[in-house]
């Protein structure tokens, strides 16, 4: 009997494992919800927190609707500029996720390319790149992100900073994390290199680049995906940290970290919602990604099957 694609997916072992783990179902649902609300934010909320023309200063610092003084127009209250907290969490998550995904993508592109080249070609190319990776691994990645970010900010002084900030962060975090993908890919490539199907491809003179990217790459993506998932959580945290320190995303189009920083000033005076809600959103997001990543690692680890 012919099956639909979705039935094929449901039949896989992977999906079976997925179904059996309630923790992961919850975690991945949360992630999907956050991504969904970030992407479709304009449709989900009438507020436009990134458009200063729509803001009314007199609305600022309204409490959430369940507290005295709150209103249902602003479900979770407003911040000091009059921006609806729920809306700005959605828009802010957009930025946090863009930086997160962007930096992971960048790190993967760099890392996997280098890893493939290194592992497949070997020789001095391999030594060179692995030395490079080793060198970078002597530094904690957050420090590298800090350094690249601060240097880039000096290079792009002035108001250009606002628009460029996202790219600077993606660059900084991406650069700081590529070595792990390179190493993972390299060892995978070295293992695959010895296998028969690769030998066969070589014999029939398939282009080495094709061998690397079309043959080896799909087979080593597993561990890289695990790294990527955990890397996403890490990237989101690093971006939040840098923004919180004031050298990340600026307050005009804030990310979750920037929001926490803005709200921190009001925490002690009793206006807790400006910092607590974004902080909770951030923590839930990161926790969910971590749970998913942990689970992926267990599932894709052949040793534990």
């Amino acid at each position, binding site marked *: 009997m012919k099956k639909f694609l979705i039935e094929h997916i449901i039949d896989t072992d992977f999906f079976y494992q997925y179904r059996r783990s309630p923790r992961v179902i919850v975690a991945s649902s949360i992630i999907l919800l956050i991504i969904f609300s970030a992407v479709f934010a304009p449709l989900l909320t009438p507020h436009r927190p990134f458009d200063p023309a729509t803001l009314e200063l007199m609305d600022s610092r309204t409490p959430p609707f369940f507290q005295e003084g709150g209103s249902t127009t602003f479900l979770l209250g407003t911040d000091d500029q009059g921006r609806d907290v729920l809306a700005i969490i959605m828009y802010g998550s957009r930025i946090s996720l863009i930086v997160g995904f962007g930096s992971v993508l960048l790190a993967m592109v760099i890392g996997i390319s280098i890893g493939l080249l290194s592992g497949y070609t070997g020789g001095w190319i391999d030594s060179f790149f692995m030395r490079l990776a080793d060198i970078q691994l*002597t530094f904690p990645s957050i420090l590298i992100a800090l350094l690249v970010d601060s240097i880039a900010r000096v290079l792009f002084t002035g108001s250009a900073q606002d628009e460029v900030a996202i790219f600077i962060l993606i660059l900084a975090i991406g650069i700081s994390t590529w070595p792990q993908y390179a190493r993972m890919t390299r060892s995978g490539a070295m293992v695959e290199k010895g296998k028969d199907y690769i030998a066969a491809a070589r014999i029939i003179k398939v282009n080495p680049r094709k061998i690397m990217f079309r043959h080896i790459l799909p087979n080593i993506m597993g561990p890289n995906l695990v790294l990527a998932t955990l890397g996403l959580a890490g990237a989101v945290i690093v971006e*939040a940290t840098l923004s919180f320190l*004031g050298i990340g995303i600026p307050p005009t189009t804030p990310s979750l970290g920037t929001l*926490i920083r803005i709200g921190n000033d009001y925490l002690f005076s009793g206006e807790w919602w400006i910092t607590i809600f974004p902080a909770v959103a951030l923590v839930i997001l990161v*926790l969910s990604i971590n749970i998913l990543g942990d689970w992926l690692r267990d599932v894709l680890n052949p040793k534990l099957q």
Partner: protein
Amino acid sequence: MIFYIGKRILQGTVVIVITAFLSFLLFNFVTDPVANMVGQETTAEDMEALRERLGFNDPVPVQFVRFMGNAVQGEFGISYQMQRSVKSLFRERFPATFELVMVSTLLALVIGIPLGVYTGLHRNGKIANGILGASLIGVSLPTFIISILFIYLFAVILRWLPPFGRGDTVAIVGYWTTGLLSISGLKSIILPAFTLCLYQLALILRIVRSEMLEALQTDYIKFAKARGLQNRVINYEYAFKNTLIPVITVLGLQVSSMLAFSVVTESVFQWPGLGMLFIQAAQFGDIPIITAYLLMATVIFVSINLLVDVIYYLIDPRLRVPSSSAAG
């Protein structure tokens, strides 16, 4: 052994030189150092003369050598923001960061190892699982959020501990100031050190735990149990000692990592160390401090890694057998 160490030293030196070159480029070419030095009314000719006098028109290699010469002595010029020499700023702030990291490391070890042993021994106990759950959260919560919560709880609501600063410090041996010899100093270091150590604590806990679990599965432990040795003897004399190896090797990375995260902790707690200095420099665009910090961090991390490699070499006999290339 010499060969092994020598190779490592060589690699470390290369790293330092490359970073030094990057710092040099940053220092001399990112912003015009002469423009940053002179007042508004200086004429173009005066600037050119100054440039010539200070040697900015010399060939790049000459400038680099001069830069390195200065760097080795700790001379990085004047901080744009604070109008004081980078050298004296660093000297002033270093003890604060050093103390913070050391106390933090100590806390992570002192709390993490026993907890790791406990959760390893009581594999399915409720408390053990509770501790494990807490450690997962400790890894997921960003440092700055933990810091804010701690300040709010302990300093503002409970008023047990000070919310910022280092307390009273005592000068010992030259320029070194310590906060550990005064009550207020000790109270001040608790929150920042604890916040800083949490991530590492969770990590150590998990490592020790998994090592304990593995060790307890081994044959020689089973044999010892069969022989009727007391559990206490088994657990501490045999299982526990083996767990220390990975902890020690991780220790070096710990200190590196803590130095990096101290940047965040120091900012939130207004701890007057190198981390806070760096963040202020980053916000301000203070190139001399950023450059100096970059070089200093490089030297520290390279040294730590070298030390860890040496210790690892001493501990793991496999490394003493000649091999063609390092693993991984």
